[in-house]
């Protein structure tokens, strides 16, 4: 890891003491070009998979367990009925517990503004109007983008030891997990060089998302395919049946949403522009002068590059060099 530091001299001699340590900035080439490209392809693919998936779900907005869709055995249903005044009422049932979700689930506004019967609202589906055939086309096209991109990511990350170095937790990571949880709950984020290193919760989150959510949602998607079921039936039966696979597929889709919300939240509160720059240009700014107390809990500040593939690319300039 080559990190050249250029200190910015503090010239104001008359400044009242105590002066914090002289802030110095360095640009670290944090995310290599393939990682950045794959990250943004994944953003597009996941977004379209999610929206088109809800379109497909809307064709039968009920979830079951097992192999059959028996009426009355729904785990979740988004339904509609008319009240005594003739108005459409949307009801979400989780098990046997009904919730009035008119306006969002079960019943929401159509393109002309009048309430219509549909599971998820048009602002959450691709295409917007009810159009199952087109939703399937979007879904099965971007499924390939998602899967091939994911395979490329795992292959690249293994080859460049990104997975082994940056995502696989070390013993020290595990020992610091309690501390890390507390820091996260208090929204304390490491600054300086420590921020370059993924903390234990990040590592676990990324590994879970890639290998549990990612692999799981693809397998559950395949388990819904009647042709694939001819060879995957042990898997289908292991999760309880095709309708169970559909339910798990749906749950993982929302788990992805939960991950994305937390991910974006963490980006927002940990220096949104620096983080975004890091994932767009590759360069991440590190202020080595004032190390945040939150960073003090880990033994040994590992200033190793997050991405070993380009060890000599750390820049020395104040501004990130152009690619």
């Amino acid at each position, binding site marked *: 890891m080559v990190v050249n530091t250029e200190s910015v001299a503090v010239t104001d001699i008359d400044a009242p003491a105590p002066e914090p340590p002289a802030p110095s900035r360095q640009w670290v080439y944090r995310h290599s070009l393939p990682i950045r490209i794959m990250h943004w392809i994944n953003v597009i693919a996941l*977004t*379209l998979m999610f*929206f088109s998936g809800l379109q*497909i*779900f809307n*064709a*039968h907005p*009920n979830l079951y367990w097992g*192999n*059959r*869709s*028996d*009426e009355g055995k729904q785990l979740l249903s988004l339904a509609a009925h008319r009240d005594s005044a003739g108005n459409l009422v949307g009801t979400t049932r989780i098990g046997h517990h009904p919730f009035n979700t008119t306006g969002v689930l079960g019943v929401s506004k159509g393109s002309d503004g009048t309430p219509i019967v549909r599971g998820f609202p*048009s*602002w*959450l*589906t*691709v*295409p*917007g*109007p009810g*159009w*199952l*055939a*087109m939703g*399937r*086309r*979007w879904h*099965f*096209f971007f*499924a*390939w983008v998602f899967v091939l991109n994911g395979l490329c990511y795992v292959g690249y990350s293994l080859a460049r030891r990104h997975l082994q170095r940056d995502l696989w937790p070390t013993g020290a990571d595990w020992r610091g997990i309690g501390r890390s949880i507390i820091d996260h709950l208090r929204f304390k984020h490491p600054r300086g060089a420590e921020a370059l290193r993924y903390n234990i919760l990040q590592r676990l989150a990324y590994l879970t998302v890639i290998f549990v959510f990612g692999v799981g949602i693809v397998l559950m998607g395949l388990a*819904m*395919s*009647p*042709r*694939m*079921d*001819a*060879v*995957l*039936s042990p898997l*289908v*039966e292991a999760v309880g*049946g*095709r*309708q169970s696979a*559909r339910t798990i597929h749906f749950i993982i889709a929302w788990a992805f949403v939960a991950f994305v919300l937390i991910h974006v939240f963490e980006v927002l509160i940990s220096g949104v522009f620096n983080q975004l720059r890091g994932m767009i240009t590759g360069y991440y700014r590190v202020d080595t002068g004032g190390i945040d107390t939150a960073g003090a809990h880990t033994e040994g500040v590992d200033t190793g590059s997050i991405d070993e593939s380009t060890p000599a690319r750390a820049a020395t300039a104040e501004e990130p060099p152009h690619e």
Partner: protein
Amino acid sequence: MSDRRSFLRMIIMGTAGIVIAGCDRISQSSWGPKVLDSAEGLNRRVQALLSPSSSMAKEYTEADISPVFHANGTTMPTTPAYQTLMANQFRDYKLRVDGMVDRPAMLTIDDLKKLDTRTQITRHDCVEGWSAIGKWQGTLLSAVLDHVGVDPQARFVVFHCFDDMDVDTPYYESVDIGEARHPQTLLAFALNDQPLPIPYGAPLRLRLGRQLGYKQAKYLSRIELVRSFDAIGGGKGGYWEDQGYEWYAGI
């Protein structure tokens, strides 16, 4: 707080709205669906590779049969030809088999029962997402094809149906010869030990083990062997295919 919430709501709905509006324009463009369609051929080829033509759909037990099998699509054809057959409990029913065959035939249900039959408890998966399990009894389509003798040039089996979906738009479907000869491709005349009831396609319907429900044409009137289905219906190989659904319904 409510200000912040409505702001957040506006941001989320606004962003989603832009994405969805963009996707809607692509969906309605001439090129967008073609690009998206490129996945269909890939899906068909890759699935055929992973799940070879000989792979068998799981067969279930009596205990797995759906208490109520959902009847979907047409449940009562209104065409005069069908109504006439129905009035006589389908006693005059004959399946016409023609096209690129050596010996065109008119087969009664009894004729079909004399050919190689199977009883299979399999799962029916609808494109909408639901599944139901039923016990199907029927004649192997491969036995019917052998009975009439298929021209080696024929590539597809087209299923013509009695039910009209729109005015003068009868339901039809098609599968390739490979799928037609699969041992779980039946011309089913019974469901759960009863003569096939009308909502499920009486007197004869197609059953496929490894494709979605819309491929499994009900109310069969005629089977036609063809080299190409370009000139039939809307040219996409099936009523729902003409509405934009995939011809390959293994997903």
